[in-house]
């Protein structure tokens, strides 16, 4: 049995808490995937310790979500009462507000991610004067993400990556140990979740979190194997433009 390193958990909660306590306008990204589920859970833990009253936003789901993911996100928003902690902003609504879809979705990966993911987020950060954006990227997920730091200064905000040093197994172990709800798409064989046109299942599916962990422990397949290969290749360009 793999047990999660409590020091890592404590460090992540402290990082989130210290920034939330020090700043007034903080946004947290919750895509519905396993990493951002853990991030959201840790954020709620951190918020329970925060003495100040910052304005919090939860940026929920993906620009073009898989239908079941939208449902799971709504389930978490309701189950964890995210409305009580901050304002819920659906990524789809950011796209409607800030982007114009006058191109073929997912044909040109850079343009698509730029128009649907990067631009709306940038404009939201600018319009709402977001000081800190907290995301759930992990270093072992992609070599471009491994170059990041936990505290990443950007032109107009600070990006915080509390899970940067967590492994994939850490995330699933944490989900299991804390009995967190699991997005049903993982049981259908998805290992990583993103926008519908660029995300595919890579296994025949799992019956439980234990099975997922066991599969990964044995080597399994790469976590992002189900993500569009063209997009994976241009990750460096996308990240330089503000994609996370």
């Amino acid at each position, binding site marked *: 049995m793999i047990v999660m390193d409590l020091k890592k958990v404590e460090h992540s909660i402290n990082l989130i808490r*210290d920034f939330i306590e020090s700043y007034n306008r903080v946004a947290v990204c919750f895509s519905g995937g396993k990493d951002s589920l853990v991030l959201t859970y840790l954020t709620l833990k951190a918020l329970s310790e925060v003495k100040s009253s910052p304005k919090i936003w939860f940026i929920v789901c993906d620009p073009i979500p898989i239908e079941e993911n939208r449902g799971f996100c709504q389930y978490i928003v309701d189950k964890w009462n995210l409305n009580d902690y901050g304002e819920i902003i659906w990524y789809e609504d950011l796209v409607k507000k800030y982007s114009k879809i006058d191109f073929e979705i997912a044909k040109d990966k850079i343009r698509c991610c730029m128009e649907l993911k990067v631009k709306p987020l940038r404009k939201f950060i600018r319009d709402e004067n977001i000081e800190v954006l907290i995301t759930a990227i992990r270093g072992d997920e992609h070599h471009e993400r491994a170059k990041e730091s936990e505290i990443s*200064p950007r032109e107009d905000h*600070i990006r915080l990556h509390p899970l940067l040093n967590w492994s994939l197994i850490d995330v699933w172990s944490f989900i299991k140990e804390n009995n967190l709800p699991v997005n049903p798409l993982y049981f259908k064989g998805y290992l990583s979740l993103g926008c519908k046109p660029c995300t595919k299942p890579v296994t025949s599916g799992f019956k439980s979190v234990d099975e997922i962990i066991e599969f990964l422990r044995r080597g399994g397949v790469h976590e992002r194997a189900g993500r569009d290969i063209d997009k994976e290749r241009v990750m460096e360009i996308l990240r330089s433009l503000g994609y996370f």
Partner: protein
Amino acid sequence: MKEQLKLLSKDLEHCDIVIILDACRCDYFRKYSKIDCECVISPASYTLGWLKVVSPLFQRYEFVAISSHPYINSKGDVLGHGYDARPYFKYIVDLWNFYYDKSIGTVHPVHVYNTFKKMFNMLKKFKMLIWFLQPHLPPATRSLYQYFKCDYNDIDIVKLIERGVLKDSDYVEMYIENLQLVLDYTYKILDYCRDRKEVVGKREINVLITSDHGEFLGEEIELNGKKVKVFSHPGNISHPILRTVPYALVSL
């Protein structure tokens, strides 16, 4: 002259911000800075030696490090020098990682200043170490590496002087330019703190400006019985020029 280490042991408790001007000589600081300072003896003559001795003092308090120096980074001992900054600092912002500019072979101080402004609110909870890479060369004021069409790792300014490509006076001139540049950003930090101390709930912000070590600017010293002209801060030399650094406490 007082010992920097003893002063730091006493003063860090009351400091909100410590600003390090890398390789700053006390005599040059006094000549070019608007800030009064005393000259003190550093415990080391090069950065790594200084960090190994001084870092435990930062660990006593909770310091967030905004560092352009690659030795102080959030990834650990990636350079393989036997020093890992992580245990000594609450959090580290890796400016080398984000803002290293290969055209100048260093991190421009503007990035330190801009990051400081973004991180300013952390002073509500923590102390802050701000590490500027200047006046340490290469100069952030000119694109030396573009001029010589090479990368930082391909040339050594001291070797360029030895080969006669640069003059002794060029080295001093670049050092002074770098010092004046970093002092400008230091003043900006002080102004920013003065104007916004209420934002972080403070009546007063106490800033310490000091350096890790000094710098040879072509002085002749006796080495192994011979008189030699020295530039930079060779790790094997411990000389008063390399150990005499400014120490300025400013209350805002």
